[in-house]
């Protein structure tokens, strides 16, 4: 009675492996497909206009005769709002994370965490709405026209703050658990342990938090579209209106034709390249990179 009977079909396992393997390949191909497709769409512009003119033309006048395709003002605006937002949100987020691990009474830490998680889920269009209706008029009363680089920086800083807080909190909490006892045993002061031990130990995670927030900021479209004024000119002050690369695409794709449309895809390509460079940088620096 010891014949183990018909073994259930290993065919089933082979099929499972084949089907999931196919799915994995497909999932892996999506990003390649997107990159190639955007490149393909951008190609006519890259070829007819040439890559150089995207930074040397007199300005962005895609419908003028002859058309001009300088993306530089938009690139500068994108980088400027991102840097500004990171300068605000970086320290603020880090200290909030420190507050949550080191200073907050547990109940307050929980409340703060809940608040930050909710903020992280708030759609960018809602941040944009708030910026447009509440923040921009305030700025306009002080330094017209209000819709400006500064408005973009402030809204963007608020938007990426939750990402920054959550990612740095994860990084610090991760090392705190293993180092806290040692540190306490050595009799370090609170700040001493923080700056001397915890933050250096959490370096990889913190750098990941910073770069993750940066990619989010760089790629933000809706909020920028709604508060920066969308003037495609090189911004000359914080209070000047500006147009980011992302907003440029959102504004013009609806009616762009032919070479103009292709030029917008060049903008998308540039954006993707920037984000990829950041991801690479993060990997190169050994940052603990965590999405979601």
């Amino acid at each position, binding site marked *: 009675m010891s014949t183990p009977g018909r*073994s*259930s079909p290993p065919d089933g396992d082979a099929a499972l492996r084949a089907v999931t393997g196919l799915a994995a390949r497909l999932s892996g191909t999506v990003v390649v497909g997107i990159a190639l497709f955007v490149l393909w769409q951008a190609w006519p512009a890259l070829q007819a206009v040439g890559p150089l003119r995207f930074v040397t033309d007199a300005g962005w006048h895609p419908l003028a005769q002859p058309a001009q395709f300088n993306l530089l003002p938009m690139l500068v605006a994108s980088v400027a709002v991102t840097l500004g937002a990171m300068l605000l949100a970086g320290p603020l987020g880090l200290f909030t994370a420190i507050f949550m691990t080191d200073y907050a009474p547990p109940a307050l830490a929980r409340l703060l965490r809940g608040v930050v998680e909710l903020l992280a889920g708030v759609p960018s269009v809602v941040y944009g709405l708030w910026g447009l209706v509440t923040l921009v008029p305030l700025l306009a009363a002080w330094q017209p026209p209000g819709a400006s680089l500064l408005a973009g920086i402030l809204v963007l800083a608020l938007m990426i703050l939750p990402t920054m807080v959550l990612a740095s909190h994860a990084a610090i909490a991760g090392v705190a658990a293993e180092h806290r006892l040692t540190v306490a045993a050595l009799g370090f002061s609170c700040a001493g342990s923080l700056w001397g031990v915890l933050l250096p130990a959490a370096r990889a995670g913190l750098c990941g938090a910073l770069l993750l927030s940066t990619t989010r900021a760089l790629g933000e479209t809706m909020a920028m579209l709604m508060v920066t004024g969308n003037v495609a000119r090189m911004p000359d002050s914080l209070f000047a209106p500006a147009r980011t690369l992302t907003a440029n695409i959102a504004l013009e794709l609806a009616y762009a034709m032919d070479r103009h449309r292709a030029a917008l895809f060049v903008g998308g390509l540039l954006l993707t390249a920037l984000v990829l460079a950041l991801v690479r940088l993060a990997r190169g620096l050994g940052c603990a990179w965590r999405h979601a």
Partner: protein
Amino acid sequence: MSIHSLPTTTCAEPVPQTALQALDLTVRYRGRAALRGVNLTVADGSVTALIGPSGCGKTSFLNCINRMTDLIAGCEVSGTLSLFGEDVLTDGSNLLALRRRVGMIFQRANPFPLSIRRNLDLPLREYGIRSASERAGRLEQALRDVGLWREVIDRLDDPALALSGGQRQRLCIARAIALEPQVLLMDEPCSGLDPHATAAIEDLIHGWHGRYTVLIVTHNLAQARRVSDHTAVFWLQDGAGTLVEHGPTGALFAAPRHPVTADYVAGRAG
């Protein structure tokens, strides 16, 4: 190289049938040898105790026999290993069939997070036993064999994870023997159990002489003497585990041939 020339395989009595034969078996993890050059022959129906200090490759050796090593990334097995004359290690061999002939009991009892009944029913069904009454019969027999039947008869549909440690381990044993394996691999099955549960399991093993071929890893030398008829001593040499001595349990404990064995069984090393 003929196995008869190997010192580790000398046996007093004639061997009825060979259940398991390892020749120059070597296990590497990410290129580092953890177990090197093991030659061991195990007779059908015998109980072999594997003893030796931690980290000398006993678990690795057991894992080769039902190819649990396949689950470990970076693990490579070389040499030959045959089970009743059939090669175990070649890629083409049927893994499921092999694991159905070789049951395994782990150090930490690992019942499925299902009901007690489903724990046995699921694998039985997998083995193609369609008839519910046959499955029920096997379930009862296996639970009776491990002495669990009386304890769980009125809660067969409760979660298996609600059982005590000793009961869980016996459930795992029942799960293994319900499938009527030829070989049972037990990796420190009693290390997490109290003396009472340990005695229950030792009694079980006693009853299996001649029925299953058992390989049991244990750190408890007294247990090795009680339950086994052969003992294999593993030791760390040059950073990798290896088999240093193998023989009938009584003789090995009374007159160890290898100096490390002598120290180990006398409690002076390991």
